[in-house]
Protein backbone atom coordinates (compact mmCIF):
# COMPACT_ATOMS: atom_id res chain seq x y z
CA UNK A 1 0.00 0.00 0.00
CA UNK A 2 1.33 3.36 -0.95
CA UNK A 3 1.85 5.83 1.88
CA UNK A 4 4.00 8.48 0.21
CA UNK A 5 2.29 11.81 -0.51
CA UNK A 6 3.22 15.37 -1.26
CA UNK A 7 3.01 18.31 1.11
CA UNK A 8 1.38 20.90 -1.10
CA UNK A 9 1.35 23.61 1.52
CA UNK A 10 3.38 24.12 4.68
CA UNK A 11 2.34 27.00 6.91
CA UNK A 12 3.60 28.16 10.22
CA UNK A 13 0.93 29.38 12.64
CA UNK A 14 3.25 30.64 15.36
CA UNK A 15 6.76 29.97 16.59
CA UNK A 16 6.15 26.28 17.16
CA UNK A 17 2.89 25.38 15.46
CA UNK A 18 2.53 24.32 11.84
CA UNK A 19 -0.17 23.29 9.37
CA UNK A 20 0.60 20.99 6.47
CA UNK A 21 -1.72 20.37 3.56
CA UNK A 22 -1.10 16.88 2.25
CA UNK A 23 -2.25 15.80 -1.19
CA UNK A 24 -3.86 12.39 -0.96
CA UNK A 25 -7.05 11.50 -2.77
CA UNK A 26 -7.13 8.20 -0.91
CA UNK A 27 -6.95 9.68 2.55
CA UNK A 28 -9.19 12.67 1.76
CA UNK A 29 -11.88 10.46 0.28
CA UNK A 30 -12.19 8.33 3.38
CA UNK A 31 -11.28 10.82 6.08
CA UNK A 32 -13.80 11.73 8.77
CA UNK A 33 -13.48 14.33 11.49
CA UNK A 34 -11.65 12.91 14.48
CA UNK A 35 -9.71 10.28 12.60
CA UNK A 36 -5.94 10.26 12.68
CA UNK A 37 -2.96 9.76 10.41
CA UNK A 38 0.30 8.07 11.43
CA UNK A 39 3.33 9.88 10.13
CA UNK A 40 6.99 9.05 9.69
CA UNK A 41 8.60 12.24 10.92
CA UNK A 42 12.20 11.36 10.03
CA UNK A 43 14.35 8.39 9.23
CA UNK A 44 14.15 5.34 11.50
CA UNK A 45 17.50 6.52 12.77
CA UNK A 46 16.29 9.93 13.88
CA UNK A 47 12.76 9.27 15.13
CA UNK A 48 12.18 5.57 15.17
CA UNK A 49 8.43 5.32 15.55
CA UNK A 50 5.71 7.06 13.59
CA UNK A 51 3.72 9.83 15.34
CA UNK A 52 -0.07 10.12 15.32
CA UNK A 53 -1.80 13.38 14.34
CA UNK A 54 -5.45 14.26 14.08
CA UNK A 55 -6.89 15.22 10.77
CA UNK A 56 -7.53 18.92 11.18
CA UNK A 57 -9.44 19.53 8.00
CA UNK A 58 -10.29 17.77 4.77
CA UNK A 59 -10.89 19.05 1.28
CA UNK A 60 -12.61 16.22 -0.54
CA UNK A 61 -12.66 18.10 -3.83
CA UNK A 62 -9.01 18.96 -3.85
CA UNK A 63 -8.15 15.58 -2.40
CA UNK A 64 -6.16 17.04 0.48
CA UNK A 65 -6.06 16.76 4.25
CA UNK A 66 -4.56 19.20 6.72
CA UNK A 67 -2.74 18.31 9.87
CA UNK A 68 -1.70 20.88 12.43
CA UNK A 69 0.97 20.21 14.98
CA UNK A 70 3.09 21.73 17.65
CA UNK A 71 6.76 21.00 18.26
CA UNK A 72 6.84 18.84 21.36
CA UNK A 73 9.93 16.71 20.95
CA UNK A 74 12.15 14.94 18.48
CA UNK A 75 9.52 13.81 15.99
CA UNK A 76 7.55 17.01 15.71
CA UNK A 77 10.82 18.97 15.44
CA UNK A 78 11.83 16.86 12.46
CA UNK A 79 8.37 17.19 10.99
CA UNK A 80 8.60 20.96 11.17
CA UNK A 81 11.60 20.78 8.86
CA UNK A 82 9.56 19.41 5.96
CA UNK A 83 8.84 21.96 3.28
CA UNK A 84 6.26 22.51 0.59
CA UNK A 85 6.85 20.08 -2.25
CA UNK A 86 8.50 17.44 -0.02
CA UNK A 87 6.99 14.00 0.11
CA UNK A 88 5.94 12.49 3.40
CA UNK A 89 5.05 9.00 4.58
CA UNK A 90 1.50 9.00 5.95
CA UNK A 91 -0.66 6.04 6.99
CA UNK A 92 -4.33 6.89 7.23
CA UNK A 93 -7.05 7.69 7.82
CA UNK A 94 -6.99 5.53 10.95
CA UNK A 95 -9.38 4.90 13.80
CA UNK A 96 -12.88 6.06 14.51
CA UNK A 97 -13.88 9.69 14.12
CA UNK A 98 -16.57 11.62 15.94
CA UNK A 99 -20.14 10.37 15.68
CA UNK A 100 -22.35 13.04 14.17
CA UNK A 101 -26.05 12.55 14.98
CA UNK A 102 -28.49 14.66 12.92
CA UNK A 103 -30.88 14.69 15.88
CA UNK A 104 -28.42 16.80 17.85
CA UNK A 105 -29.40 20.41 17.21
CA UNK A 106 -27.01 22.10 19.61
CA UNK A 107 -23.43 21.09 20.15
CA UNK A 108 -20.42 22.40 22.01
CA UNK A 109 -16.84 21.50 21.19
CA UNK A 110 -14.24 21.94 23.91
CA UNK A 111 -10.55 21.92 23.10
CA UNK A 112 -7.28 22.72 24.78
CA UNK A 113 -3.84 23.25 23.20
CA UNK A 114 -3.14 20.81 20.38
CA UNK A 115 -6.52 19.26 21.19
CA UNK A 116 -8.29 21.91 19.17
CA UNK A 117 -7.16 20.54 15.81
CA UNK A 118 -9.65 17.70 15.24
CA UNK A 119 -12.51 19.92 16.33
CA UNK A 120 -12.30 22.14 13.27
CA UNK A 121 -13.40 19.57 10.73
CA UNK A 122 -15.99 18.34 13.19
CA UNK A 123 -17.58 21.79 13.32
CA UNK A 124 -17.56 21.96 9.54
CA UNK A 125 -19.22 18.58 9.13
CA UNK A 126 -21.72 18.58 11.94
CA UNK A 127 -25.34 19.19 10.82
CA UNK A 128 -26.34 20.88 14.10
CA UNK A 129 -28.18 24.18 14.01
CA UNK A 130 -26.20 25.82 16.73
CA UNK A 131 -22.51 25.19 17.33
CA UNK A 132 -20.38 26.64 20.06
CA UNK A 133 -16.61 26.22 20.45
CA UNK A 134 -14.71 26.70 23.69
CA UNK A 135 -10.98 26.75 23.12
CA UNK A 136 -8.35 27.10 25.80
CA UNK A 137 -4.86 28.50 25.31
CA UNK A 138 -1.97 29.42 27.58
CA UNK A 139 -2.00 33.07 26.58
CA UNK A 140 -2.91 35.50 23.83
CA UNK A 141 0.15 34.82 21.68
CA UNK A 142 -0.65 31.09 21.70
CA UNK A 143 -4.06 31.53 20.10
CA UNK A 144 -4.21 29.91 16.67
CA UNK A 145 -6.76 29.14 13.95
CA UNK A 146 -9.12 31.73 15.48
CA UNK A 147 -10.63 32.73 12.14
CA UNK A 148 -11.05 29.20 10.91
CA UNK A 149 -12.97 28.32 14.04
CA UNK A 150 -15.02 31.54 13.96
CA UNK A 151 -16.09 30.71 10.43
CA UNK A 152 -17.08 27.20 11.37
CA UNK A 153 -19.26 27.83 14.39
CA UNK A 154 -21.87 30.20 15.74
CA UNK A 155 -20.05 31.21 18.86
CA UNK A 156 -16.38 31.04 19.76
CA UNK A 157 -15.32 31.36 23.38
CA UNK A 158 -11.63 31.65 24.07
CA UNK A 159 -10.12 31.12 27.50
CA UNK A 160 -6.53 31.67 28.52
CA UNK A 161 -4.57 30.69 31.59
CA UNK A 162 -3.41 34.25 32.10
CA UNK A 163 -6.47 36.14 30.86
CA UNK A 164 -4.41 37.94 28.21
CA UNK A 165 -7.29 37.36 25.80
CA UNK A 166 -10.77 35.96 26.24
CA UNK A 167 -11.73 34.74 29.67
CA UNK A 168 -9.31 33.83 32.39
CA UNK A 169 -10.59 30.43 33.40
CA UNK A 170 -10.44 26.75 32.54
CA UNK A 171 -12.39 25.63 29.47
CA UNK A 172 -14.41 23.44 31.78
CA UNK A 173 -15.53 26.49 33.78
CA UNK A 174 -16.64 28.16 30.56
CA UNK A 175 -18.39 24.97 29.55
CA UNK A 176 -20.36 24.88 32.76
CA UNK A 177 -21.61 28.40 32.17
CA UNK A 178 -22.55 27.65 28.58
CA UNK A 179 -24.53 24.62 29.70
CA UNK A 180 -26.32 26.70 32.29
CA UNK A 181 -27.14 29.27 29.61
CA UNK A 182 -28.30 26.81 27.02
CA UNK A 183 -27.79 23.07 27.42
CA UNK A 184 -26.37 21.39 24.32
CA UNK A 185 -27.37 17.96 22.98
CA UNK A 186 -23.79 16.75 22.69
CA UNK A 187 -20.35 17.92 23.76
CA UNK A 188 -17.07 16.98 22.09
CA UNK A 189 -13.79 17.10 24.00
CA UNK A 190 -10.22 17.01 22.86
CA UNK A 191 -7.26 18.04 24.99
CA UNK A 192 -5.35 17.13 28.12
CA UNK A 193 -6.64 14.10 30.00
CA UNK A 194 -7.39 16.08 33.13
CA UNK A 195 -9.55 18.53 31.15
CA UNK A 196 -11.53 15.67 29.65
CA UNK A 197 -11.91 13.92 32.96
CA UNK A 198 -13.30 17.03 34.60
CA UNK A 199 -15.46 17.78 31.57
CA UNK A 200 -16.98 14.32 31.45
CA UNK A 201 -17.74 14.64 35.17
CA UNK A 202 -19.58 17.90 34.65
CA UNK A 203 -21.68 16.50 31.82
CA UNK A 204 -22.61 13.52 33.91
CA UNK A 205 -24.20 15.90 36.39
CA UNK A 206 -26.27 17.43 33.61
CA UNK A 207 -26.92 14.10 31.95
CA UNK A 208 -25.66 15.33 28.60
CA UNK A 209 -23.80 12.89 26.32
CA UNK A 210 -20.28 13.60 25.19
CA UNK A 211 -17.46 12.27 23.06
CA UNK A 212 -13.77 12.46 23.88
CA UNK A 213 -10.76 12.19 21.65
CA UNK A 214 -7.96 10.45 23.55
CA UNK A 215 -4.20 10.46 23.26
CA UNK A 216 -1.90 7.56 23.96
CA UNK A 217 1.61 6.56 22.91
CA UNK A 218 1.38 4.39 19.81
CA UNK A 219 3.29 1.74 17.94
CA UNK A 220 1.63 0.34 14.83
CA UNK A 221 -1.25 2.83 14.68
CA UNK A 222 -3.65 0.28 13.26
CA UNK A 223 -4.68 -1.93 16.16
CA UNK A 224 -2.17 -4.75 15.90
CA UNK A 225 0.30 -4.15 18.73
CA UNK A 226 -1.99 -3.27 21.64
CA UNK A 227 0.34 -0.62 22.99
CA UNK A 228 -2.00 2.39 22.79
CA UNK A 229 -4.78 1.32 25.09
CA UNK A 230 -7.28 3.11 27.30
CA UNK A 231 -9.81 1.70 29.75
CA UNK A 232 -13.24 1.20 28.24
CA UNK A 233 -16.14 0.11 30.41
CA UNK A 234 -17.61 -3.27 29.59
CA UNK A 235 -20.54 -4.68 31.49
CA UNK A 236 -19.58 -4.50 35.15
CA UNK A 237 -15.92 -4.51 34.26
CA UNK A 238 -13.62 -2.79 31.79
CA UNK A 239 -11.25 -3.69 28.96
CA UNK A 240 -8.13 -2.13 27.56
CA UNK A 241 -8.95 -1.13 23.98
CA UNK A 242 -6.76 0.36 21.28
CA UNK A 243 -6.97 4.14 21.02
CA UNK A 244 -5.68 3.94 17.43
CA UNK A 245 -8.34 1.56 16.21
CA UNK A 246 -11.32 1.71 18.56
CA UNK A 247 -10.70 5.42 19.10
CA UNK A 248 -9.27 7.96 19.28
CA UNK A 249 -12.88 9.12 19.75
CA UNK A 250 -14.95 7.39 22.40
CA UNK A 251 -18.21 8.00 24.15
CA UNK A 252 -17.11 9.99 27.19
CA UNK A 253 -19.11 7.80 29.52
CA UNK A 254 -17.48 4.63 28.29
CA UNK A 255 -14.01 5.68 29.36
CA UNK A 256 -12.41 5.25 32.75
CA UNK A 257 -9.88 8.00 33.37
CA UNK A 258 -7.38 6.87 35.99
Amino acid at each position, binding site marked *: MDTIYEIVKADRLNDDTYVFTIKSETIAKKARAGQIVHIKCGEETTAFLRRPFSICSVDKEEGTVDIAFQIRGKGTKLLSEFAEGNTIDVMGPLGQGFSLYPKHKKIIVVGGGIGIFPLLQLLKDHPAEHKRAILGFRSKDRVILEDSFKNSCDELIITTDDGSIGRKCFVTDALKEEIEKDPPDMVFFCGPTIMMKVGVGILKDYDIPCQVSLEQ*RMGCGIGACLTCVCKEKKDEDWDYVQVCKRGPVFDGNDIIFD
Partner: protein
Amino acid sequence: MNNDINLKVNIAGLELKNPVIAASGTFGFGREYSRYFDLNALGGISVKGLTLKPRKGNPPPRIAETPMGILNSVGLQNPGIETFIEKEIPFLRKFDTAIIANASGNSLEDYERIVEMLSDSDIDAIELNLSCPNVKEGCMVFGTSAQGINTVVSRVKKLAKKPLIVKLTPNVTDIAEMAKAAEAAGADSVSLINTLLGMAIDAKTRRPVLGNVTGGLSGPAVKPVALRMVYEVSKAVSIPVIGMGGISNGTDAVEFLLAGASAVMVGTAGFVDPMAWVNTVEGIKAYMQENNVSSVTELIGGLIV
Protein backbone atom coordinates in the same frame (compact mmCIF):
# COMPACT_ATOMS: atom_id res chain seq x y z
CA MET B 1 11.70 -12.22 -10.69
CA ASN B 2 13.83 -15.29 -11.13
CA ASN B 3 11.72 -18.41 -10.90
CA ASP B 4 14.68 -20.58 -10.08
CA ILE B 5 14.90 -19.05 -6.64
CA ASN B 6 13.69 -21.43 -3.98
CA LEU B 7 12.66 -19.74 -0.74
CA LYS B 8 11.13 -22.80 0.93
CA VAL B 9 12.33 -23.83 4.35
CA ASN B 10 11.29 -26.62 6.62
CA ILE B 11 10.98 -26.17 10.37
CA ALA B 12 10.59 -29.52 12.01
CA GLY B 13 8.10 -30.78 9.45
CA LEU B 14 6.41 -27.43 9.05
CA GLU B 15 7.02 -26.30 5.50
CA LEU B 16 7.14 -22.54 4.97
CA LYS B 17 6.93 -21.02 1.51
CA ASN B 18 9.56 -18.53 2.58
CA PRO B 19 11.53 -17.99 5.78
CA VAL B 20 9.81 -14.78 6.89
CA ILE B 21 7.31 -14.99 9.74
CA ALA B 22 5.48 -12.14 11.47
CA ALA B 23 6.68 -12.01 15.09
CA SER B 24 4.19 -12.60 17.86
CA GLY B 25 2.59 -9.56 19.42
CA THR B 26 3.49 -7.22 16.60
CA PHE B 27 0.98 -8.46 14.09
CA GLY B 28 -2.18 -9.04 16.12
CA PHE B 29 -4.10 -11.84 14.44
CA GLY B 30 -3.24 -10.55 10.99
CA ARG B 31 -6.50 -8.70 10.37
CA GLU B 32 -5.08 -5.19 10.55
CA TYR B 33 -2.17 -5.78 8.24
CA SER B 34 -4.29 -7.72 5.77
CA ARG B 35 -5.44 -4.30 4.62
CA TYR B 36 -1.88 -3.29 3.88
CA PHE B 37 -0.65 -6.31 2.00
CA ASP B 38 -1.60 -9.79 0.95
CA LEU B 39 -0.88 -12.10 3.88
CA ASN B 40 -0.15 -14.84 1.37
CA ALA B 41 3.23 -13.18 0.95
CA LEU B 42 4.38 -14.40 4.37
CA GLY B 43 5.96 -17.69 5.28
CA GLY B 44 3.95 -17.66 8.48
CA ILE B 45 2.26 -15.62 11.14
CA SER B 46 2.92 -16.01 14.83
CA VAL B 47 -0.16 -14.57 16.46
CA LYS B 48 -0.41 -12.39 19.55
CA GLY B 49 0.54 -14.35 22.66
CA LEU B 50 -2.42 -16.39 23.90
CA THR B 51 -3.40 -17.45 27.37
CA LEU B 52 -6.15 -19.76 28.59
CA LYS B 53 -8.34 -16.95 29.87
CA PRO B 54 -8.57 -13.45 28.39
CA ARG B 55 -5.94 -11.11 29.82
CA LYS B 56 -6.21 -7.40 30.32
CA GLY B 57 -2.50 -6.68 30.18
CA ASN B 58 -0.59 -3.82 31.77
CA PRO B 59 -1.53 -0.17 32.31
CA PRO B 60 -0.52 2.34 29.62
CA PRO B 61 1.74 3.90 28.46
CA ARG B 62 2.89 0.61 27.03
CA ILE B 63 5.44 1.81 24.52
CA ALA B 64 8.51 4.03 24.64
CA GLU B 65 10.90 5.00 21.92
CA THR B 66 14.59 4.35 22.62
CA PRO B 67 17.71 4.78 20.46
CA MET B 68 16.90 2.62 17.41
CA GLY B 69 14.44 0.55 19.35
CA ILE B 70 11.31 0.46 21.43
CA LEU B 71 10.27 -0.76 24.83
CA ASN B 72 6.88 -2.38 25.19
CA SER B 73 5.00 -3.48 28.25
CA VAL B 74 1.79 -4.84 26.75
CA GLY B 75 1.77 -7.76 29.17
CA LEU B 76 0.09 -10.36 27.02
CA GLN B 77 -3.28 -8.68 26.58
CA ASN B 78 -5.31 -11.19 24.56
CA PRO B 79 -8.88 -12.44 24.18
CA GLY B 80 -8.05 -15.95 25.42
CA ILE B 81 -7.60 -19.20 23.57
CA GLU B 82 -11.28 -19.88 22.99
CA THR B 83 -11.98 -16.66 21.17
CA PHE B 84 -8.83 -17.24 19.14
CA ILE B 85 -9.98 -20.66 18.03
CA GLU B 86 -13.49 -19.48 17.26
CA LYS B 87 -12.87 -16.15 15.60
CA GLU B 88 -9.30 -15.80 14.50
CA ILE B 89 -8.30 -19.15 13.08
CA PRO B 90 -11.11 -19.12 10.49
CA PHE B 91 -9.95 -15.71 9.32
CA LEU B 92 -6.28 -16.69 9.10
CA ARG B 93 -7.06 -19.98 7.37
CA LYS B 94 -8.25 -18.04 4.35
CA PHE B 95 -4.61 -17.32 3.58
CA ASP B 96 -1.94 -19.67 2.40
CA THR B 97 0.48 -18.99 5.24
CA ALA B 98 1.46 -20.99 8.31
CA ILE B 99 -0.44 -20.20 11.48
CA ILE B 100 1.78 -20.33 14.52
CA ALA B 101 -0.01 -20.06 17.85
CA ASN B 102 2.10 -18.27 20.43
CA ALA B 103 1.00 -19.47 23.85
CA SER B 104 1.78 -18.66 27.47
CA GLY B 105 0.65 -19.87 30.84
CA ASN B 106 0.76 -18.90 34.48
CA SER B 107 1.30 -22.47 35.59
CA LEU B 108 2.31 -25.85 34.29
CA GLU B 109 -1.33 -26.84 34.10
CA ASP B 110 -2.08 -23.77 32.03
CA TYR B 111 0.63 -24.68 29.57
CA GLU B 112 -0.65 -28.22 29.32
CA ARG B 113 -4.23 -27.20 28.81
CA ILE B 114 -3.45 -24.59 26.16
CA VAL B 115 -1.22 -26.96 24.22
CA GLU B 116 -3.97 -29.55 24.28
CA MET B 117 -6.51 -27.09 22.99
CA LEU B 118 -4.19 -25.84 20.28
CA SER B 119 -3.31 -29.37 19.27
CA ASP B 120 -6.95 -29.97 18.48
CA SER B 121 -7.33 -26.75 16.56
CA ASP B 122 -6.58 -25.91 12.96
CA ILE B 123 -3.15 -24.34 13.33
CA ASP B 124 0.25 -25.34 11.97
CA ALA B 125 2.58 -25.03 14.92
CA ILE B 126 2.71 -24.02 18.55
CA GLU B 127 5.22 -21.46 19.75
CA LEU B 128 5.57 -21.84 23.49
CA ASN B 129 6.35 -18.46 24.97
CA LEU B 130 8.62 -19.04 27.95
CA SER B 131 9.95 -15.58 27.73
CA CYS B 132 7.59 -12.68 28.13
CA PRO B 133 9.30 -10.15 30.39
CA ASN B 134 6.11 -8.19 31.01
CA VAL B 135 4.15 -10.49 33.24
CA LYS B 136 4.89 -11.42 36.82
CA GLU B 137 3.89 -15.05 36.99
CA GLY B 138 4.70 -17.96 34.70
CA CYS B 139 6.35 -17.30 31.44
CA MET B 140 9.76 -15.82 32.08
CA VAL B 141 9.96 -17.55 35.44
CA PHE B 142 9.96 -20.86 33.59
CA GLY B 143 12.12 -19.51 30.80
CA THR B 144 15.11 -18.34 32.80
CA SER B 145 16.32 -21.69 34.06
CA ALA B 146 17.20 -24.84 32.19
CA GLN B 147 15.20 -26.80 34.71
CA GLY B 148 12.13 -24.61 34.29
CA ILE B 149 12.31 -25.01 30.53
CA ASN B 150 12.83 -28.71 30.82
CA THR B 151 9.84 -29.13 33.09
CA VAL B 152 7.39 -27.20 30.96
CA VAL B 153 8.56 -28.54 27.63
CA SER B 154 8.62 -32.20 28.74
CA ARG B 155 5.12 -31.91 30.10
CA VAL B 156 3.56 -30.23 27.08
CA LYS B 157 5.49 -32.28 24.56
CA LYS B 158 3.47 -35.31 25.58
CA LEU B 159 0.31 -33.48 24.62
CA ALA B 160 1.46 -31.59 21.55
CA LYS B 161 0.19 -32.88 18.26
CA LYS B 162 1.74 -30.02 16.29
CA PRO B 163 5.37 -28.99 15.84
CA LEU B 164 6.47 -27.43 19.10
CA ILE B 165 8.60 -24.29 18.89
CA VAL B 166 9.99 -23.00 22.19
CA LYS B 167 10.56 -19.27 22.35
CA LEU B 168 13.51 -18.27 24.49
CA THR B 169 14.19 -15.15 26.48
CA PRO B 170 17.53 -13.39 26.02
CA ASN B 171 17.54 -12.35 29.67
CA VAL B 172 19.69 -15.28 30.73
CA THR B 173 23.33 -15.98 31.41
CA ASP B 174 23.67 -18.86 28.98
CA ILE B 175 21.23 -19.00 26.10
CA ALA B 176 22.77 -22.14 24.62
CA GLU B 177 22.07 -24.01 27.84
CA MET B 178 18.40 -22.92 27.66
CA ALA B 179 18.14 -24.10 24.06
CA LYS B 180 19.70 -27.42 24.93
CA ALA B 181 17.24 -27.86 27.76
CA ALA B 182 14.38 -27.24 25.34
CA GLU B 183 15.83 -29.67 22.82
CA ALA B 184 16.42 -32.36 25.43
CA ALA B 185 12.83 -32.02 26.59
CA GLY B 186 11.50 -32.59 23.10
CA ALA B 187 11.17 -29.18 21.46
CA ASP B 188 11.01 -29.43 17.69
CA SER B 189 12.49 -25.97 17.23
CA VAL B 190 13.52 -22.93 19.24
CA SER B 191 12.79 -19.30 18.39
CA LEU B 192 14.74 -16.35 19.76
CA ILE B 193 15.08 -13.68 20.92
CA ASN B 194 12.16 -12.32 22.81
CA THR B 195 12.71 -8.82 24.19
CA LEU B 196 15.52 -7.68 26.49
CA LEU B 197 14.24 -6.28 29.74
CA GLY B 198 14.77 -2.52 29.82
CA MET B 199 13.47 0.75 31.13
CA ALA B 200 13.00 4.37 30.12
CA ILE B 201 12.84 7.41 32.38
CA ASP B 202 11.56 10.88 31.63
CA ALA B 203 14.09 13.17 33.30
CA LYS B 204 11.66 16.08 33.18
CA THR B 205 8.86 14.40 35.12
CA ARG B 206 11.26 12.05 36.98
CA ARG B 207 8.91 9.20 36.22
CA PRO B 208 9.24 5.96 34.25
CA VAL B 209 7.83 6.37 30.74
CA LEU B 210 6.04 3.02 30.88
CA GLY B 211 3.04 2.40 33.10
CA ASN B 212 4.62 -0.90 34.08
CA VAL B 213 8.02 0.77 34.83
CA THR B 214 10.02 -1.80 32.87
CA GLY B 215 9.41 -3.21 29.41
CA GLY B 216 10.90 -5.33 26.66
CA LEU B 217 13.42 -3.87 24.26
CA SER B 218 13.16 -4.75 20.56
CA GLY B 219 14.11 -3.32 17.21
CA PRO B 220 17.48 -2.68 15.49
CA ALA B 221 19.19 -1.79 18.79
CA VAL B 222 19.05 -5.44 19.92
CA LYS B 223 20.16 -6.98 16.63
CA PRO B 224 23.79 -7.59 17.68
CA VAL B 225 22.68 -9.45 20.82
CA ALA B 226 20.08 -11.44 18.90
CA LEU B 227 22.53 -12.41 16.19
CA ARG B 228 25.07 -13.61 18.75
CA MET B 229 22.47 -15.68 20.57
CA VAL B 230 21.16 -17.25 17.38
CA TYR B 231 24.74 -18.11 16.46
CA GLU B 232 25.46 -19.67 19.84
CA VAL B 233 22.20 -21.60 19.92
CA SER B 234 22.44 -22.96 16.42
CA LYS B 235 25.88 -24.33 17.23
CA ALA B 236 24.54 -25.91 20.41
CA VAL B 237 21.41 -27.68 19.18
CA SER B 238 20.48 -29.71 16.15
CA ILE B 239 16.81 -28.70 15.97
CA PRO B 240 16.01 -25.78 13.65
CA VAL B 241 16.35 -22.28 15.03
CA ILE B 242 14.07 -19.35 14.21
CA GLY B 243 15.93 -16.08 14.58
CA MET B 244 14.62 -12.62 15.34
CA GLY B 245 15.46 -9.36 17.02
CA GLY B 246 15.80 -6.14 15.08
CA ILE B 247 15.39 -7.52 11.58
CA SER B 248 14.26 -4.71 9.29
CA ASN B 249 15.19 -5.84 5.81
CA GLY B 250 16.50 -8.64 3.63
CA THR B 251 20.14 -8.06 4.55
CA ASP B 252 19.39 -8.34 8.26
CA ALA B 253 17.45 -11.53 7.59
CA VAL B 254 20.33 -13.01 5.60
CA GLU B 255 22.68 -12.29 8.50
CA PHE B 256 20.44 -14.36 10.79
CA LEU B 257 20.27 -17.18 8.26
CA LEU B 258 24.07 -17.16 7.94
CA ALA B 259 24.32 -17.25 11.74
CA GLY B 260 22.32 -20.45 11.69
CA ALA B 261 18.63 -19.58 11.67
CA SER B 262 16.36 -21.65 9.43
CA ALA B 263 13.73 -18.93 9.38
CA VAL B 264 13.32 -15.44 10.77
CA MET B 265 10.64 -13.39 12.43
CA VAL B 266 10.11 -9.68 11.89
CA GLY B 267 8.30 -7.54 14.43
CA THR B 268 9.08 -3.99 15.45
CA ALA B 269 10.24 -2.97 11.98
CA GLY B 270 6.64 -3.26 10.84
CA PHE B 271 5.58 -0.39 13.09
CA VAL B 272 7.88 1.89 11.17
CA ASP B 273 6.98 0.49 7.79
CA PRO B 274 3.94 -1.76 7.41
CA MET B 275 5.59 -3.19 4.31
CA ALA B 276 8.66 -4.37 6.29
CA TRP B 277 7.51 -8.00 6.30
CA VAL B 278 6.99 -8.14 2.56
CA ASN B 279 10.12 -6.11 1.90
CA THR B 280 12.14 -8.58 3.93
CA VAL B 281 10.97 -11.42 1.71
CA GLU B 282 11.84 -9.36 -1.37
CA GLY B 283 15.20 -8.37 0.11
CA ILE B 284 16.18 -11.99 0.70
CA LYS B 285 15.26 -12.75 -2.90
CA ALA B 286 17.32 -9.84 -4.15
CA TYR B 287 20.34 -10.95 -2.10
CA MET B 288 20.02 -14.46 -3.47
CA GLN B 289 19.85 -13.22 -7.03
CA GLU B 290 22.87 -10.94 -6.62
CA ASN B 291 24.86 -13.70 -5.03
CA ASN B 292 23.68 -16.59 -7.17
CA VAL B 293 22.09 -18.50 -4.37
CA SER B 294 19.35 -20.72 -5.74
CA SER B 295 17.93 -22.12 -2.51
CA VAL B 296 17.62 -20.17 0.69
CA THR B 297 18.62 -23.30 2.59
CA GLU B 298 22.16 -22.82 1.25
CA LEU B 299 22.45 -19.72 3.40
CA ILE B 300 21.48 -21.38 6.66
CA GLY B 301 24.54 -21.55 8.91
CA GLY B 302 26.70 -20.39 6.03
CA LEU B 303 28.82 -18.06 8.11
CA ILE B 304 32.52 -18.38 7.32
CA VAL B 305 34.38 -18.22 10.61
